């Protein structure tokens, strides 16, 4: 009977959350756009021939007519130097960008939040040391640090994303730590302590379930910014191999033709902007769902 009640309440809660989310039209639009990007990535991964793509992992140059061509029926978004069809390349690039950005955010958040939670629950000297280490990581602009770390490891996509993980985890460590600390101080944890609940049980049952959801939202919000930084690194010349379909690299290919062929730089850049926008809208909606104060 009791379990039934609990389930019912949970379902009601879920329904309320869904209502709050759906009432935010911008967030729903964001969700739909993000889903389109994910679907594209899945199709290119599983069955690229549906989209007419033969080689999902490389750009197909055409040296017979290398100069960028304007959008036409044969090339709906035009071509970029050297004769690369933009639409197909963008469809391929979304998969690569999405995969690596998700990798950076998820691994970074996993490492960062474990360290943050440990540092906040143990406290004392350990906490102080962890915070000083994160301070050091914040003392270099992240783009530069990622550039230097990636350069030392060798310039390719995997190292580029590993470098971003190394730069990114301190942000989550900080954030998780502050969330955990503020939850630790809250009245319901005090109450649990007063009624004699064990320390581990307090951490796992009371602190973590309340401290982590905001972290997840931060993670989803960061997916957009990480993709932007990832493409920026590629844009300034991090990628050595000439045939990697990556949005920032695609933009840089058209850079010398900006006067005669603006589409070659605008389209790949816009694709990233739309994604980052959609992710931000989605994140705002999710924040409304999780924050009870905004649920009126």
């Amino acid at each position, binding site marked *: 009977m009791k379990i039934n009640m609990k389930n019912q309440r949970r379902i009601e809660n879920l329904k309320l959350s869904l209502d709050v989310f759906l009432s935010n039209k911008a967030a729903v639009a964001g969700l739909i756009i993000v889903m389109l990007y994910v679907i594209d990535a899945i199709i290119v991964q599983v069955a690229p021939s549906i989209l007419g793509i033969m080689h999902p992992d490389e750009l197909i140059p055409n040296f017979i007519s290398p100069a960028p061509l304007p959008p036409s029926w044969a090339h709906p978004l035009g071509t970029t130097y050297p004769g690369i069809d933009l639409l197909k390349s963008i469809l391929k690039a979304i998969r690569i960008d999405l995969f690596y950005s998700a990798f950076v955010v998820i691994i970074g958040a996993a490492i960062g939040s474990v360290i943050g939670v440990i540092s906040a629950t143990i406290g004392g000297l350990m906490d102080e040391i962890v915070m*000083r*280490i994160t*301070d*050091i*990581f914040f*003392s*270099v*602009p*992240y*783009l*530069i*640090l990622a*550039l*230097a*770390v990636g*350069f*030392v490891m060798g*310039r390719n996509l995997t190292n580029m994303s590993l470098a971003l993980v190394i730069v990114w985890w301190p942000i989550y460590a900080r954030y998780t730590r502050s969330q955990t600390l503020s939850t630790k101080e809250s009245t319901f944890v005090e109450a649990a302590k007063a009624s004699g609940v064990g320390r581990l049980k307090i951490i796992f049952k009371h602190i973590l379930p309340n401290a982590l959801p905001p972290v997840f939202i931060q993670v989803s919000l960061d997916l*957009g910014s990480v993709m*932007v930084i990832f*493409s*920026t690194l590629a*844009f*300034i*010349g*991090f990628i050595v191999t000439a045939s990697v379909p990556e949005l*920032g690299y695609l*933009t*840089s290919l058209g*850079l010398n033709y*900006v*006067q005669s062929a*603006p589409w070659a*730089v*605008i389209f790949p*850049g*816009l694709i*990233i*902007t739309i994604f*980052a*926008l959609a992710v*931000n809208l989605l994140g705002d909606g999710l924040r409304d769902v999780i924050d009870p104060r905004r649920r009126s």
Partner: protein
Amino acid sequence: MNLLNYIIRRVLLFIPTLIGLTFIVFILSHVSGNNIILAEYINPKLTGAARQMAIQKLILEFHLNQPVYIQYFYWLNQILHGNLGYTTTPIFSGPVVNAIELFLPNTIMISIVATIIIWYLGVWLGVFSAVNRDSLADHTIRIGSFTLYAMPIYLIGVLLIIVLGVYFKILPFSGVVNPILVSNLPWYVNGISYPTHIILIDAILHGSWNVALNAFLHLLMPSITLALGIVAGIIRILRSSMLEVQDQDYVRLARSKGLSEHSVNYFHAKKNAMLPVITLFGLTVAGLLSGAVVVETIFNYPGIGYWTTQALLSSDIGGIMAATLLFGLLLVAANLIVDIVYAFIDPRIRY
């Protein structure tokens, strides 16, 4: 007294961060043995026996045959004496110190112009948006800043080039000055202007007003791009903090004693609403430095950022490491200054 204590405490906290920063750069250049440090410090012009001798000398100087943690101190000692190694890039090759001397002034120049734009535009639009809440202008500003916030900075630069440079043809978008204008000037040799290396200031010092005007126009596009990449965050923060302050007692008091809407908003509310923006200034500096790398590359603007990407493209480890250290130092110093300024402005922080 309290303020002094606070400042001393902040400066002391600055030291471990500096040690950490130098340690990161040190580890990065030692992670794959001694080759990187040799590549950084050996004069690329040496060959044959002279090169071997230079290598031996470096091994002694940096104590490369000793454990890494001892090497760190010898390396730090060299850094403190201004020995940052060599850089070999298409735009500059020679000692790193000379490269910094040449490129840093230009980066500082666009950062200053960008900061002025950010400050005026950001504060004006942020306050305006909050004061005219839910009006058409407010919605436009919000959507605009939301979109700018999501844009990669290179796209902002490229769009500006297309609109202002190619379509309307009002602003130049490559280099620091029109090369024809400076071809026969005594103070401009081999693409380097003397004495400050900032061509705008040098032109004013030498009284060549047409060169100064041209240099100023060349400065605008990179600075505007840099500013637009950062201003969106300022507008958003300032708008929400303006709205928050509206409910505070002192703002209500100002309103109830009959002050005009304008003076309530712009003199009473704005002052406290600016506090979060000032904390954000540290982040702004980080954005300016990261942005400079991208912006200078797009506009072929010879600053530290352009040099960094050139070093990346020509696999020049000396340039990359020195740039990392330099960018780190600039950011740490900016954060320290922000903290101290904040203590002056907001007395609550000192206790």
